[in-house]
């Protein structure tokens, strides 16, 4: 108790002076860190094996595929848009990559690049409709979610498998002891965080999300930036699809990535990205991704049935939103 007062006392005179977010510590800005830490503690105490290296690797690999899409999606949401089609894009991209590697016998690199191109194309369609024609991102990408799933089923009516050992490298290889998907995800997270915080383009993303008209009148390219984010998000979804196809050595047009869009969006929103655009951080999104991964893994270890896990995810999202709304940061 005495340490707490000693800790807060010197900060108090400063805090009224600093009304901005600067005065907030990382923990204050991301209450999810505490929740995540507590949750890890509880899971470790109740299962005894949660923090085992093997289990953590499992969580990391699971979280990696979410993170690869969550980061570009977060940037898209910060810029005031939304992409609900990533689940279907994941399926189509994974199938395309698998088909190139297996049925067509292409090299793994060509297969992955082919899958990425398919995903980028889906993203470009979203981007043109939303950014250049000004249609609602919610409606466009909701439509694309269904349409792309239909396209995948039309093109690949049968499940694909046997993609070859080269292709299996993508999901199974270890780079310095770390699984390849985790390395890819780490690259995506670092690149995204650096772009958002350290480049002019990152500031432009915020500006467009806060006030698109003011950004336009300030000479910022308010179409190309979100358009590119749509393309990147699509490509990222396809990459995740290829990774999953590689791990499983199979892809099914009807079920691959079904519901993935909602998981990713949940992670993004849990991470403190405002659905209305203009605020959020890659660090927060990473926390959101890890939280969802840890929650699912821990509950599975505890033998909690799936429907309880889904309920926990949903409750966490709503509770997170409530926390953000009623929490201490509410300045207006």
């Amino acid at each position: 108790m005495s340490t707490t007062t000693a800790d807060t006392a010197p900060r108090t005179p400063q805090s009224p002076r600093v009304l901005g977010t600067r005065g907030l510590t990382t923990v204050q800005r991301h209450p999810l860190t505490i929740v995540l830490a507590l949750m890890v503690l509880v899971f470790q105490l109740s299962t005894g094996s949660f923090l085992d290296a093997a289990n953590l690797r499992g969580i990391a690999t699971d979280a990696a595929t979410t993170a690869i899409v969550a980061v570009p999606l977060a940037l898209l949401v910060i810029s005031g848009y939304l992409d609900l089609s990533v689940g279907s894009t994941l399926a189509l991209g994974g199938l395309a990559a698998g088909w190139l590697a297996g049925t067509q016998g292409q090299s793994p690199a060509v297969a992955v690049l082919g899958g990425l191109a398919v995903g980028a194309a889906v993203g470009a369609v979203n981007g043109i409709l939303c950014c250049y024609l000004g249609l609602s991102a919610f409606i466009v990408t909701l439509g694309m979610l269904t349409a792309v799933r239909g396209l995948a089923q039309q093109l690949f009516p049968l499940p694909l498998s046997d993609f070859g050992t080269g292709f299996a490298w993508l999901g199974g290889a270890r780079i310095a002891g770390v699984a390849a998907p985790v390395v890819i995800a780490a690259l995506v997270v670092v690149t995204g965080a650096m772009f958002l915080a350290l480049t002019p383009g990152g500031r432009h993303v915020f500006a467009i999300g806060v006030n698109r008209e003011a950004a336009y009148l300030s000479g910022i390219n308010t179409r190309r930036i979100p358009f590119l984010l749509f393309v990147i998000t699509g490509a990222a979804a396809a990459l995740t699809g290829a990774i999953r196809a590689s791990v499983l050595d199979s892809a099914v047009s009807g079920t691959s990535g079904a519901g993935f869009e909602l998981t990713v969006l949940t992670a993004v929103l849990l991470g403190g990205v405002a659905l209305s655009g203009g605020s959020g951080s890659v660090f927060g999104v990473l926390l959101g991704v890890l939280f969802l991964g840890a929650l699912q893994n821990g509950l599975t270890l505890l033998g909690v049935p799936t429907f309880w896990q889904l309920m926990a995810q949903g409750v966490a999202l709503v509770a997170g939103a409530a926390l953000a709304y009623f929490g201490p940061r509410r300045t207006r």
Partner: protein
Amino acid sequence: MTVANLRIRGLSKSFGGAKALDNVDLTVPAGQVHALLGHNGAGKSTLIKCLGGAFAPDAGMIEVGGTSYARLNPRESIAAGVAIIFQTLSVVDSLTVAENIFLGQERIRYGAVNRRAQETLAAGLLERVAAGCAPRDRVGGLPMGQRQLVEIAKALSRNASVLVLDEPTAALSGAESDALAARVEDLRTQGLAIVYVTHLLSEVERLADAVTVLRDGRVDYHSTASGHSRRQLVTTIMGRASGSPPPRPGRAGATERGHGPSDDSAGPQSRPEASGGSGALDARSGPRNSEVTPPAGSSAPGRPAVPSRSVPDGPSSVPHRDPASVVDDKAPDPAAATAGHPGLTVEGLAGAGFGPVGFDVAEGEIVGMYGLIGSGRTRILETLFGRRHKSAGSVRLGGRAVAPARPAEALAAGIALVPADRRAQGLFATLTAQDNVLLPGLRSLARGVLRSVRAERRTFDAVAAAVSLRPARPKLPAAAYSGGNQQKLVLGRWVNERSRTNVLLLDEPTQGVDVGARQEIYRVVAGLAAEKRTAVLFASSDPEEVVALAHRCLIVARGRVIGELAGAQLTEEALLSAVHDTPAEGAA
């Protein structure tokens, strides 16, 4: 007829530090039309919103039909009998006239809406306002004037006793305006207390039984004298300004004046100094036309210091500036202006809703565009900035043709715009002050692909000092600043060393800006013109602002330039007359 249907006493309301309403009194007896005048940001809309229950006043009381309220919520306001017809009407286009009138108070029979009863009642109400439309007409298909009458009919259906009309003729045609005036006269004889907000003196002359002019949240002028002739009103309202000349930010001493307001937060005592930059602001409390009743608020602290400032020449000397000094500070550098190297040249420019217009703005010159809202000033500015497409004409900058298709192209050519609607078009409210100032120029400050923290901070500090931003804190969100300092953030974007601004366009540069910040903004703009030879073109509906800031002023009406005032002719009275004496027909 002597029953006061609306009495407002000592109403005050502040936003942050700025007083939007300061001890305002207003009495409107039943059967009277009370005209409420004032420039943008004078407090008219705040007053109306307190009446309608959108804002809770800090102090004072509102009495409607004998019942006093310290504050109203929207429902209480309606129940008390107040009806407000806003400029942006609140009718639902997809519903019928009758449905709109009874929206929220539907006549129910057998658990369903009784259409027939509503339509019968609506027909009666529509007749009362001579709306000329049927209860079953869709509101979306009606012209503006009729929609407005539908809303008035709705107010009558709620037994409103106080009717507030907020610039009702702003969106109406001449014929519609006449029809509305006739309706207002009818309603007056039916015993309603009517508050009529307007910019148009012709309407005051025709309709008003009493006049109140608000300025900077205070009652600046009040008169219950009947039979206001327009001429009389102009001189009466302007009479207060016949003292010392308004500030000339362009001339020496502007800097010293500009620093005056920097301690305006110190307390009421500093207020005279704060507005000391503006002779016109103070002079209104000076010698007045005898007809003027001093407002109750004039005894407020801060005013007593004013009489000592009173100026030798009396209220009668209306063309009040010394011609010699006028020449000196009006034409900043006549040689440069006539040297055949004009900054901005506009010829035959036309677009949706305006034109053709032609004018030029020399390097270092500040040109105003004075006109009422909807006269096309904003469209002209937005077209120059590439926000709107032109249909004809040419724009040249330094002799070279520029035709920006997008704002980004205009900025690349050195043309910048400070838009009128700060919140919707200018500010990034949740981003930091530094981001707000630097966003357009971040790329030029970056080293390679990465932002340079040091260069950004240095540039921000320089801009903050140049525009007297307070507080000058880079990480503070823009939303935390006062209106005036928010405007400095938006303006600061183009004061930035990195943004080569050859032409600065400003739309209502001090709308919603407090007095102190207003002077600082004038100083910054004048400094840009004087030191960086920026050509400045600004639009304003505030004659005082035009006189304070402009070297030369274009009179804009109905999308055209109908006149020009410069030198000794550029007075507030001349501006008011120029617009008000040339109604619908326009072209003079």
